């Protein structure tokens, strides 16, 4: 992913340049998104995330812009070219399911499928239905579905129109916590089993960290950071990322499983971590560590209940809220963020280059899906 392209676009990428002026808002972006995996678009509400998606889908006409998908020009305002919405091979999952209330679930799913022209990727109806667990609701009307079920149908509907890529605009925002977790699981399976790239918009960094491979951060209509997830998450200088959910992600390999305590030992460049549950040795896990769950010690702590204690080097200390600071740590070739009180930082006199021990109170793990395209 790189900004400031000339929007020529290469094969297997979505290159775009958009300027969209509204009375109280301006979108001005120039970027190229790789045609693989899940690309997160993160930002506060009003940052222009939805406008960006709507431009890509053709639902919004930019003042000027160019969109090149896989080397094909979809839009070029300079030459007054713009594919109409229905001719763009995209799937769009909105914040609300937007199912057609006069059609059964089955016919909702057929809607896009029947209109999809023959495309290279062939999506299997049975596979998608099974993937999203819709077998039992095919004959029901949308009114009879719960919010989570309806959103699953709408995701399946978007996938079944055989899109080149899928746009998801905060698909979990309208759901409660339990439903959110449920859909996240389905999205995870989708990511692992299908090769369709997804552009995923959210203002929830937890969701983004759990799902995405690449991340771009937007603020006031502009892209202020982009790159692979781990490196962007490490940018403690970005206020947008420093919220409650700030944290980092490392990729680790499962080393062994301790059946007696039900713990799996995983290894990454910074050392070993214990995570709960059983994971297949040799498989790769994505480990997310929230800044709030990391504390620091000058000496290796003993007699503590915390299992995961790793040596680290302080890279930088960034101001956070009034009482807290964010500390960027390097461990091997990986990075962690710790949120500690400003008072502790002064008392420990933390400076760049200092060697410390990071105590990690809890970690969230996610299995890494099959690399799309393989």
């Amino acid at each position: 992913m790189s900004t400031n392209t000339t929007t020529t676009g290469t094969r297997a990428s979505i290159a775009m340049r958009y300027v969209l002026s509204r009375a109280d808002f301006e979108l001005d972006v120039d970027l190229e998104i790789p045609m693989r995996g899940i690309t997160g678009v993160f930002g506060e509400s009003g940052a222009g995330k939805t406008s960006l998606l709507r431009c890509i889908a053709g639902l919004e006409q930019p003042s000027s812009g160019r969109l090149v998908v896989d080397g094909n020009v979809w839009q070029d305002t300079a030459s007054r070219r713009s594919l109409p919405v229905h001719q763009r091979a995209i799937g769009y999952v909105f914040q609300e399911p937007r199912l057609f209330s006069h059609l059964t679930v089955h016919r909702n799913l057929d809607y896009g499928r029947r209109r999809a022209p023959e495309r290279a990727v062939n999506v299997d109806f049975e596979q998608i239905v099974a993937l999203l667990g819709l077998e039992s609701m095919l004959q029901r009307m949308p009114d009879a579905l719960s919010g989570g079920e309806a959103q699953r149908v709408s995701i399946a509907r978007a996938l079944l129109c055989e899109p080149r890529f899928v746009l998801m605009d905060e698909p979990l925002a309208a759901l409660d916590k339990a439903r959110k977790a449920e859909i996240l699981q389905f999205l995870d399976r989708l990511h692992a089993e299908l090769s369709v790239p997804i552009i995923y918009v959210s203002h929830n960094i937890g969701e983004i960290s759990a799902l995405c491979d690449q991340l771009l951060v937007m603020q006031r209509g502009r892209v202020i950071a982009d790159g692979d997830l781990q490196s962007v998450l490490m940018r403690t200088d970005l206020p947008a990322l420093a919220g409650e959910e700030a944290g980092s992600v490392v990729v680790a390999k499962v080393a062994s499983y301790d059946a007696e305590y039900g713990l799996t030992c995983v290894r990454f460049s910074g050392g070993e971590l214990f995570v709960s549950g059983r994971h297949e040795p040799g498989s790769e896990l994505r480990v997310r560590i929230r800044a709030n769950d990391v504390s620091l010690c000058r000496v290796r702590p003993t007699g503590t209940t915390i299992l995961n204690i790793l040596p680290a080097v302080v890279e930088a200390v960034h101001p956070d809220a009034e009482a807290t600071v964010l500390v960027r740590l390097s461990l091997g070739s990986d990075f962690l963020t710790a949120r500690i009180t400003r008072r502790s930082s002064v008392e420990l006199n933390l400076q760049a280059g200092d060697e410390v021990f990071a105590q990690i109170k809890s970690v969230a793990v996610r299995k890494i899906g099959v690399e799309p395209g393989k």
Partner: protein
Amino acid sequence: MFETTSMGPLLLSIRLATTTTLVLLIIATPLAWWLAHTTSRWKPGIQATVALPIVLPPTVIGFYLLIVLGPYGTIGRWWVEVTGDALTFSFTGLVIASCIYSLPFAVQPLQVAFQSLDRRDVEAARTLGASPLDAFFSVAAPLSAHGFLNAIVLSFAHTLGEFGVVLMVGGNIPGETRVISIAIYDHVESLDYAAAHQMSALLLAFAFVVLLSMFVINRRLSRR
């Protein structure tokens, strides 16, 4: 063949109302869609024009139509040149007059239905590969079914009950323009109360059945 019985005028009325309703659906649907979504400054003017027949006495509409459609009127003269027949005092002339007279009864229910439509549904249809026309027929129209039903029943019923306009434009030609309301008036004029009773009762029963079925269907639609 029914001219002497009470069925003839009733059947003619039904034929007129059916034809008018079909023509109106074709005209009123795009007009109502435009009115529901436009921000044009012409909108109030067009809306007022469409609503005029609700306010004006049928005789006024009939009078102007007589002038325009008559053999010396702009449209009437052109029609005579093209077809060789006069528009006034013909079934075709009656259909044109009825369409104008019943236009608001088709446009308004449709406009209300289109306005209450969630445009996000149409957007979703577009992203699923539907062209604008396809999205209209597959999503917008079915979701506006009650609007179409109301438009159909109201324009049909309104045309069925037409009297003043027919009298001015169509006259009283059996089998061509002698619709049931005119026939009843005729019978009363000639003091043939028995025939007037018969026709009136027939129309009353028919109108009741039509309205009843509309409300039954409407209830089913809203239950869905």
